[in-house]
């Protein structure tokens, strides 16, 4: 039964093949033909497969092996500790402390879970989910080829993912980290990364100089200076951290880990091909921590003096200490100041609000380089150099000061007043500097005006005004030396464009449209002190590698020299020495009898304050010492501090105390002075 009878005759004996109910039919298909065609098709299809396999496996095999290794080997970044920043004597001002960062690796978040996970993670980190989302999207932006911002939807749906660990929180607390580790199963893709955070053992010392770190942003990635940096890298965003990032950052290491498709690491022997992190180099700055601290104390003292003197609005200032010969910055202080550690691990909204509050008077502002103001009488030595070098006057030229000056042959008959209302009488040049006689320099300014040239302006620029000094931290402003050309381009109306006698007269006493930063003034005084060399101030001294070897000296290119005749220098220097020492000198009350001979000029600059809608006095003191062999230039400016001799000069003396290791009582201000 099993092998049933089937058809009675064999296939070959019958011309027609047919089934049980076969009826005679006219035409039968040729099975053989159709089989032959199908064989041909089969051969063709197999040929296609073999060709493709040959292409994939034989021709591109090694490429795919590499891709398979890319798949399974995950590079884990081992962060390099960032270099420390020290003062010139090796005292550490900025260092690292270990921290823990919380990040998420999108590749390892299962599809469709990201939305919920972000909410949970935000809860654990005590931030808003929107912030976490924004962080993730921002991280992805740089690598996105089209430049179109990534939509959160695309990320949540898994259309965009990233192998990199996207750091959500830089400096997570132990509590948060242990919570996340305990609940790691509810947070797939979330990883804890050891990192280094900035630490400031000296507190707010020189806070404005170092700058903060932040993740490199989209625009920075395109910049030449950040070439070779990767998205997610922490870079210096300002100050020295920005300027010397290349040296400070070191080189992140890399460990290779074998992971499965779900991102779970496989416990195996370490995979070769990793790289140890190289710590960053140490930046040795020109700063002297003791001098810096003293300069900051001096500013507080100057403001205190101003307040005591009745200048209750005084609330800020700047001090610069330069090496007179080479421009090394021994101190650069700005008041008010702030605690730089608020930036570590991300600036909180609260702290940011505090720093930006106008009542806090902008502590982030480095007033030594980022703010230019009228410099008042401290400009007179520059004036003197210009007048003598151009032959406008000679050292023996005298003018009579009766307390006022009216420019001759002008229509407006404006009365310019000397600070000494009753006048100084007849003065020669040295006496005029000593007593800071305004009328004398009004005359000089008017003489310059009559020459119809720009000699005074040119000299001011030659001595470092009107352009940034080129210090090695970003954010410097250029100040301004007004010229006829500047007036023409700056003002709109024809009347305003005219260069008036008053413009030259005002410039001669450092007023009017004239503006300079404390650092610019310091470079000009350094030129007077060192005989005409325009130094380029700098904060970086050298770069030292972790083994202690100096890898780079940061001395700037050779400064250029301005030719100033010796007689001119002698006259100006004499005036400055007398101003600080002779009985009639404006700061003699402060520096008279001081163990080191100081040469210095007071300044009381009238600056229009838009908040109170009238002029306020900025107190200046610009000086160098020792007078016979100048080593240091000290410039102090107290905002709204009143008279230079009353507040700025005493502050400067505090700094000299430190520079020359002198013990002295806190100096009081000169009673009546410019």
């Amino acid at each position: 039964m099993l092998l049933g009878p089937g058809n009675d005759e064999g296939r070959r004996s019958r011309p027609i093949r047919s089934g049980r109910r076969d009826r005679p039919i006219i035409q039968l298909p040729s099975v053989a033909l159709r089989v032959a065609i199908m064989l041909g098709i089969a051969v063709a299809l197999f040929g296609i497969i073999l060709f493709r396999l040959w292409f994939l496996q034989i021709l591109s095999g090694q490429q795919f092996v590499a891709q398979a290794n890319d798949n399974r080997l995950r590079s884990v970044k081992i962060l390099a500790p960032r270099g420390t920043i020290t003062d010139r004597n090796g005292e550490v001002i900025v260092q690292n402390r270990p921290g823990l960062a919380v990040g998420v690796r999108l590749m390892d978040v299962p599809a469709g879970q990201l939305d919920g996970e972000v909410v949970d993670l935000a809860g654990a980190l005590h931030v808003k989910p929107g912030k976490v989302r924004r962080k993730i999207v921002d991280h992805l932006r740089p690598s996105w080829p089209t430049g179109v911002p990534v939509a959160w939807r695309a990320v949540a749906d898994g259309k965009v993912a990233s192998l990199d660990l996207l750091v959500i929180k830089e400096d997570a607390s132990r509590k948060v980290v242990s919570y996340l580790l305990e609940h790691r199963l509810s947070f797939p893709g979330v990883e804890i990364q050891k990192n280094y955070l900035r630490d400031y053992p000296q507190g707010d010392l020189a806070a404005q100089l170092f700058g903060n770190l932040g993740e490199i942003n989209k625009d920075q990635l395109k910049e030449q200076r950040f070439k070779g940096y990767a998205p997610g890298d922490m870079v210096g965003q300002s100050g020295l951290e920005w300027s010397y990032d290349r040296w400070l950052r070191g080189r992140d290491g890399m460990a290779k880990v074998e992971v499965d498709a779900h991102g779970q690491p496989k416990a195996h022997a370490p995979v070769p091909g990793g790289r140890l992190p190289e710590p960053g180099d140490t930046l040795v700055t020109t700063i002297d921590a003791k001098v810096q601290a003293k300069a900051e104390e001096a500013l507080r003292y100057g403001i205190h003096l101003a307040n005591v003197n009745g200048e209750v609005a005084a609330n800020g200032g700047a001090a610069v200490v330069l090496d007179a010969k080479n421009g090394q910055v021994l101190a650069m202080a700005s008041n008010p100041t702030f605690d730089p550690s608020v930036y570590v691990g991300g600036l909180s909204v609260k702290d940011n609000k505090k720093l930006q509050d106008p009542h806090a008077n902008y502590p982030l502002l480095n007033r030594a380089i980022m703010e230019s103001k009228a410099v008042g009488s401290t400009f007179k030595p520059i004036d003197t150099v210009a007048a003598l070098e151009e032959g406008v006057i000679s050292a023996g030229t005298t003018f009579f000061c009766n307390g006022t000056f009216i420019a001759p042959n002008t229509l407006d008959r404006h009365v310019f007043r000397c600070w000494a209302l009753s006048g100084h009488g007849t003065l020669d040049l040295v006496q005029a500097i000593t007593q800071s006689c305004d009328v004398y320099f009004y005359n000089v300014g008017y003489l310059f005006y009559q020459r119809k040239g720009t000699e005074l302006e040119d000299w001011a620029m030659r001595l470092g005004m009107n352009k940034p000094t080129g210090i090695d931290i970003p954010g410097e402003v250029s100040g301004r030396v007004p010229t006829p050309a500047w007036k023409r381009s700056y003002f709109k109306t024809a009347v305003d464009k005219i260069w008036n006698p008053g413009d030259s007269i005002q410039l001669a006493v450092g007023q009017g449209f004239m503006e300079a930063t404390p650092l610019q003034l310091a470079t000009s005084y350094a030129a007077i002190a060192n005989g005409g060399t325009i130094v380029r101030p700098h904060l970086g001294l050298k770069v030292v590698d972790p083994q202690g070897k100096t890898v780079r000296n940061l001395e700037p290119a050779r400064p250029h020299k301005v030719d100033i005749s010796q007689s001119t220098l002698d006259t100006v220097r004499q005036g400055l020495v007398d101003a600080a020492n002779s009985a009639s000198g404006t700061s003699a009350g402060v520096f008279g009898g001081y163990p080191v001979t100081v040469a210095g000029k007071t300044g009381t600059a009238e600056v229009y304050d838009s908040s109170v809608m009238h002029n306020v006095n900025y107190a200046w003191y610009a000086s160098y010492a020792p007078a016979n062999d100048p080593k240091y230039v000290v410039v102090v400016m107290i905002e709204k501090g009143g008279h230079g001799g009353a507040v700025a000069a005493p502050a400067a003396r505090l700094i000299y105390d430190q520079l020359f290791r002198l013990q002295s009582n806190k100096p009081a201000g000169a009673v009546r002075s410019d």
Partner: protein
Amino acid sequence: MDWRAYLRHLDYILIAAALGLVAYGVTMIYFATRHDIGGQPLRFVIQQLVAVGVGLVAAAVVSLLDYEIYRRFQWVMYAFAVFIVAVVLPFGEVVHGARRWIDLGFQSFQPSALAVLLLALSIGAYLADRMDMLGSKRVTLIALAMVAVPVFLVYREPDFGSAIVLVALTMAMLYFYGTSWTHFAVLAGSGIAAFVVALKVLPLAGIHLIQQYQIDRLFVFLNVGHNPQGSGYNIIQSMIAVGSGALTGRGDMATQTALDFLPEHHTDFIFAVLSERNGFLGALVLIALYGVVIWRCLRIATLSRDMYGSILAGGIGVMVLFQVFVNIGMTIGIMPVTGIPLPFLSYGGTAMIAFLMFVGLLEAIHLRATVTPSTRGHLVR
């Protein structure tokens, strides 16, 4: 019964090729799944071997039976095929959003895999019974209508792969039945037209027969880089696996499989597992084995004593060719992802049993074709 005649007239080349494929497949399932369930490296291999055992017994039985009897029960088989694919829709277990399996308590059972066998026998019988109507449009249309019902049901599971396998099988049987070329031309034309209408014209009218993601998935192989984390992921990982196998394979360094980068590694992408492990040479062996199977199928189609045998053998051969090409093509990025398993290789008990029964059926056809009149007398008691 004459066992000697039976044994003498078996197609041993076909048996050897089929068993070679099965052995190769079981080995690869082992390598693909040994890490899937901790502590049970042989879990999937044992399940597959059970299916192989059942399949071999079933194949032996089928080879002994005269396939003429299926003609008698063709409508019963057809009704049963429709029944089992219909019953899975309300009663099947849901896996990955699809109802393709019925839980029999001790074992899951995939109705669509068995339906392929039943429909081959019933539609083949329908065609063989109408050799006198060769060239008639009615036969072509009814055969297509017969398969359309289970295809629709299978598609609703959804099991797109099985649905197109059924269509391919029916077309192949029509081909060996001798359907006129003009019918095929018209079918091809209307197929393309329907595709264009469903894809381009109806969406304009607001009717979406095919969802966008299905279209994306279908065409993703043309541009896998378009969405490497989404629909392109499987193909990319599969191509990396295949390509990294190079000439001789990566052996135990087959990380795409071991580390789970390769999706569906023991079912749809078993070829990628094999290629990664054994390289071009290993793949060549596999393709040669398939070549032998298809060659033997087509040879049996020409030898068959009647048209029913020819239609069945040819249909089975083309179906195997179709599945092999589409499945391997998918893993190497030249065909869309359709979810068609690799015959004899992919993990899946019902399909394994069905394919071994196909081999039994081919042997039955072979036996009855090669037994000469003189020996046949001995064969029948």
